[in-house]
């Protein structure tokens, strides 16, 4: 059960000072409706994610990637296997559901900034709720973090008043306020146009370089995956299982010029076939969006 | 995972609550008996202090007990007049409701489809809508030759406004892309109407009619009560469960009042279920959501 040989250390994790946020997904199985029509969403999936690493999960829609993310976050149960965070068991067959905690914070697909709070109040939410800071300190820290991320000036707007790209960034800052070990991103840029996306990517990397967290990023966009990640795990269609793991050896820090580099093109070629194959399978199976 | 047992659990909990309710009701109604016992002298004092007569618990004490109600109900079940009331009420509800649908749906669709009609018709509609249907009763009686027709008109009004509002809302919320897709595939205006607007509005029509049905029952019952007794809008036409209740009140049989109330509740429930079943047949695509 000790999966040590699964992933060779990725070359590009720059001076990982953190030893926190290492995830081990160990032979996880997830079956829906155990007494009805059993649907296997995750099929003996094993994956190693190193501390401080950006791990991209690529696969066609509905293949079960979100289930994995939800299991790590503590929203869904697993049927068997286990998931470990820094050596501690998050969930296993005996304890099927992890506890949601600010160790692992999710950034949701359609955004989950509270529309009824201002951006600043949203960002300050975590520490305030956990009692780690009092109100003035929390708001002050939030303001500083927002300024750091280039978001000064929209503190007192409501999320509905700013652009969707900006909302995403605010949501990420909201997560980072709590110094999580892991950031779980569920296709956060899916609804954005590709031009905004590229700005968002650079913004994300910028934030990442300053706050070393482990990032677990689900996407169906292979380019996005290779551009951002240290490691790209290509998943099969339902049931979900890593089909191919790519180590992206393009050094960090990266900027958008990477997209046209030779190495990038090579990596795309290596993996494109695998992704396309799975996409065809999913299409044939008529998968509904996950 | 024991999924089945949670369902059972839910049923049990619901059943427990209803049983508790019935028990409390029984006790409350019987307060006119047990409050006379010596043990409850303090209660009698308390009631007098608050200005209530110390003869039973306030409010609930005046209501007949479930056991008494059941006894009377058993008797009433064999009385043909009771079933006649059922028939009359159902008949009125159906008449009013069907009329509201037949006129309301086309009217609503017209408002939704034609901007000019909407501009002309909707403001007048919105001004008339807040007037409660029952306020129309006297005007209705003045207008229509027979009592029955005046009740039907008021019933119709009650459901009409709700249905129209829901139809308009539903038609407007049809995604404009469906129209664009149809047009690009060469659909004519009437095609678009029959194949896009109508089916697209159906879910809202279904919702609107569910609410409209509830209102229809309210109005029918009220109209029956008013025409049968109470005020002087007299007349020989009576019948119906509303009249049944009113009559029971006037005649002093309080148990029958409760019988009537529960009967209407059941009748309303049946008609809602019928409507919902019909709605499901008409919009099969919604089931998959």
């Amino acid at each position, binding site marked *: 059960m000790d999966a040590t040989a699964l992933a060779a250390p990725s070359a590009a994790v720059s001076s990982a000072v953190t030893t926190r946020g290492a995830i081990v997904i160990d032979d996880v199985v997830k079956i829906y409706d155990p007494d009805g029509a059993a649907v296997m969403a995750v099929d003996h999936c094993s994956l190693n994610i190193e501390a401080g690493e950006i791990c991209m999960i690529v696969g066609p829609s509905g293949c079960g990637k979100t289930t994995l993310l939800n299991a790590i*976050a*503590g*929203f869904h149960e697993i049927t068997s296997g286990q998931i470990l965070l820094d050596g501690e068991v998050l969930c296993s067959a005996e304890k099927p559901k992890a506890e*949601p905690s*600010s160790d692992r914070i*999710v950034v949701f697909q359609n955004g*989950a900034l*509270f529309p009824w*709070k201002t951006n600043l109040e949203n960002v300050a939410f975590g520490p305030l*709720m956990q009692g780690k800071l009092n109100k003035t300190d929390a708001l002050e820290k939030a303001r500083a973090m927002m300024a750091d991320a*280039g*978001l*000064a*000036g*929209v503190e007192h707007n*409501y999320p*509905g*008043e700013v*652009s*969707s790209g*900006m909302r995403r960034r605010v949501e990420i800052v*909201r997560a980072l306020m709590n110094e999580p070990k892991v950031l779980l991103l569920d296709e956060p840029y899916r609804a954005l146009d590709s031009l905004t996306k590229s700005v968002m990517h650079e913004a994300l990397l910028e934030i990442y370089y300053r706050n070393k967290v482990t990032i677990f990023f689900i996407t169906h966009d292979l380019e996005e995956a290779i551009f951002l990640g240290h490691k790209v795990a290509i998943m099969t269609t339902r049931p979900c299982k890593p089909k191919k793991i790519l180590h992206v050896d393009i050094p960090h820090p990266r900027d958008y010029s990477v997209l046209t580099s030779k190495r990038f093109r090579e990596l795309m070629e290596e993996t494109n076939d695998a992704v396309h194959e799975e996409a065809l399978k999913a299409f044939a199976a008529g998968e509904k969006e996950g | 995972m024991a999924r089945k047992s949670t369902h059972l659990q*839910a049923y049990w*909990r619901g*059943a*427990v*609550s*209803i049983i508790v309710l019935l028990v409390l009701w029984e006790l409350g109604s019987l307060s006119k008996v047990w409050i006379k016992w010596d043990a409850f002298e303090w209660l009698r004092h308390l009631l007098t202090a608050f200005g209530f007569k110390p003869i039973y618990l306030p409010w609930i004490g005046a*209501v007949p007990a479930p056991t008494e109600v059941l006894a009377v109900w058993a008797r009433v079940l064999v009385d043909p007049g009771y079933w006649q009331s059922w028939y009359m009420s159902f008949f009125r509800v159906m008449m009013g409701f069907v009329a509201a649908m037949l006129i309301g749906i086309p009217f609503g669709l017209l408002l939704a489809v034609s901007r000019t009609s909407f*501009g*002309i*018709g909707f*403001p*007048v509609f919105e*001004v008339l809508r807040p*007037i*409660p249907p*029952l*306020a129309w*009763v*006297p005007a209705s009686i003045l*207008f*229509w030759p027979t009592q029955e027709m005046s009740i039907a008109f008021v019933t119709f009004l009650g459901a009409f406004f709700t249905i129209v509002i829901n139809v308009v809302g539903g038609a407007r919320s049809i995604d404009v892309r469906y129209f664009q897709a149809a047009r690009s595939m060469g659909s004519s205006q009437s095609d678009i109407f029959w194949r896009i607007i109508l089916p697209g509005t159906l879910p809202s029509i279904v919702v609107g009619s569910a609410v409209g049905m*509830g209102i229809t*029952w*309210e109005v029918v019952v*009220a109209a029956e*009560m*008013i025409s049968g007794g109470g*005020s*002087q*809008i007299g007349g020989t036409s009576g019948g119906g469960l*509303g009249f049944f*209740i009113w009559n029971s009140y006037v005649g002093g049989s*309080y148990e029958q*009042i409760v019988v009537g*109330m529960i009967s*209407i*509740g059941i009748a309303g*429930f049946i008609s809602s279920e019928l409507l919902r079943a019909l709605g499901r047949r008409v919009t099969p695509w919604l089931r998959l959501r």
Partner: protein
Amino acid sequence: MSAATVDERADDEVVEILRQTMPLQVARDDLLRRIAAAGRRVHYEATQVLYEVDDIADDLYIIVSGEVRHTLGPGAHAKEPTKVLKAGDVFGWAALLEKTPRRLARAVCTKPTEIVRIGGETLLRVLATDADVGDVVMSRFATMISREFTVPDLADQLRRIHRKMHAKDIQGMNLTLYRMSLWLKSPRPYLMLIGFALFLGFWYLAVEVWKLPRFREMPGITAVIKEWVSREPTYGLSIYTDEYYKHIWVSVWRVTQAFVLATLLGVPIGLFLGWSKKFKEYVFPVFEVFRPIPILAWVPLAIVMFVATESAVIFLTFLASFFATALNTMLGVESIDESYVRAANCLGASRAQVFRHVILPGALPFIFTGLQISIGVSWFSLVAAEMVSGQYGLGYVINTSYTMVRYPTIVIGMITLGAVGYVTSALVRVVGDYLMQWRTRELALGGR
């Protein structure tokens, strides 16, 4: 201020310079080109004063080469007022501030300096053409102003890039006026008048001119209006009689009592029904047993239960209102997007905190829709209850007007009912809009 020499060089160089500045790093090439095209290069000698405090702030300045000493005046309350700026630095950003832009600092060249000047308004306009990136640029300006120039308060005053430029000042009154002006220009108000004219006209003609048989007994519109506004109304009720207002007040007061009670009880119960599965399993079946019974079927029982007719009337109205409120509140809680609750859990909120910070505000829009329905239902029940029992009140007026053959008063009663009902419903809506500022603002911007 005065240009020593004006040079026109290849735009490419300017674009490069712009790209190196902190705020414009994220802008794409075509955007930078457009900004560059709007700018001009100016050469200054050493010791030349670029501007003084309180000069009009028109342009943004970007240093190509050379050195500038930038001293913020006392009014700016900067933590470090003096800065020495070099190639690639940006200053003169007062041109981008919301309030009347005047210079906040004194800028002097300490060496011969090449500068690119861009008009503030022009820059904003160019940025507005690409709102998402424009947003990012402006926030980077804000960051620069607060961190490098140490005046965080001024960062708040930066102009915003709005998604719809013509709806610039979208607060409160301006929005209403703007909307009204749009409405008046559309065909809508005129169609509305046609509609009313048709309706009233038909009424008039049918009763008083053509004297249609069906309409024989109906009061004509002229009769109604005459009665309504006469000082000595034949049937005793007009806008000049005290009694009219008494009836209105009685009805309104009853509805208010019933509605407030129903809200105080219905909202909490509805919230718990939506929030706690256990509670719902216990309580909802009881709810569903009572709900199908029409409110008016309760009338005789209510009269039996509540000896005083006043309480009976209020009880009936309360009952109707309560069911509507509780049900809608419950549905509201159940409609809240699960993601919000999950996000709150991730961020460490306890169950009680989730309830207070997510469920309550999240359900508020639904609660208010429910309250609007509820008040409509209250009026419905009240009228019915008043018609059957009780004295005073608009329902009573309509009823007795019929029996006492005061037909015009019937119509007066009906119209008054409609108007009062509408006003109370609008009041609820306005309160809702006020409590949910975030929603009104979002909808004003055209929604998501």
